[in-house]
């Protein structure tokens, strides 16, 4: 790994924050606080600051709720996986904020997740709004707190497509990365 390149990117402000480890509730609190302080000093307008913050929260909570030992409806763990994750806030070459997360997921969940993101990526702003309202109105919150709304909201607020990839780690596990450029 080229540490100087990493340092230079930090120095130029391309990488604003990066983290690898277990995403805990305490960690999330400190990230929110750090980003609030960052934005207080920055020149971004209210609309953009809030957008970044919203998307950041949803991305991190997605990782928080879907990492590690996932339990099915019967409380049975179906994935004794690695609960480490990576998360980064950076700037693209076009100077837009980019939020990237990476976490391990069970291989068998890939196909449903991929289909969901692909279908969301095909939707217009109006279709996303209609889907969001429909899910908000009809879905119950799951045990883990999500209502399937996070990913729709990220697409709605970011105004860009959700970039993703799956990297197979072993026959049961893949590393899932999600990257959102905020325009």
């Amino acid at each position, binding site marked *: 790994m080229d540490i100087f390149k990493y340092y230079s990117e930090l120095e130029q402000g391309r990488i604003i924050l990066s983290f690898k480890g277990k995403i805990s509730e305490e960690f*999330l609190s400190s990230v929110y606080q750090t980003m609030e302080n960052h934005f207080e000093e920055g020149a971004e307008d*209210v*609309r953009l600051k809030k957008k970044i*913050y919203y998307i950041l929260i949803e991305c991190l909570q997605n990782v928080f*709720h879907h990492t590690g030992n996932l339990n099915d409806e019967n409380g049975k763990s179906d994935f004794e996986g690695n609960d480490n994750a990576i998360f980064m806030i950076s700037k693209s070459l076009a100077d837009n904020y980019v939020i990237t997360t990476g976490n391990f997921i069970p291989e068998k969940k890939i196909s449903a997740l991929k289909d969901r993101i692909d279908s969301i990526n095909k939707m217009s702003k109006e279709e996303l*709004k209609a889907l969001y309202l429909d899910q*908000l109105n009809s879905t119950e*919150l799951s045990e883990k707190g999500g209502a399937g*709304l*996070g990913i729709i909201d990220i697409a709605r607020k970011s105004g860009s497509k959700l970039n993703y990839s799956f990297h197979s780690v072993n026959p049961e596990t893949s590393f899932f990365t999600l990257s959102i450029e905020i325009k």
Partner: protein
Amino acid sequence: MIDNLIIESTVKTPEVKLNSNGFLEISGKSIPENSIAFYQPLYAWLDNYATNPAAKTELKISLEYFNTSSSKCLLDVLRKLDVLNKSGKSSVSVTWYYEDGDDDMLEAGDDYKSLVPLPFSFMKV
């Protein structure tokens, strides 16, 4: 008259003031990982309040941010108030505050307005 429910804000949860005189307020940030746990006492208070409400109930929602898991809980709060309003026991209104320039928060309020038939007004701050 039931006791008021007052909850102080934290980094992830809003300040809540539910007064039995009919003034209800939720303000700040609502971004907890487990929003049901946070909103449960509010539901319980509202159910209790609905048995003997004030003639007028005014809910002020003044949030800087809320996550999608809270969005479901806020809808449940509004639905409870809608039931109360329809019962005729209290006349309920909602005021949705949003920061000047925060189009997403204004749209979020508009989303709720389209889902719950309560009188909504919007206030820019």
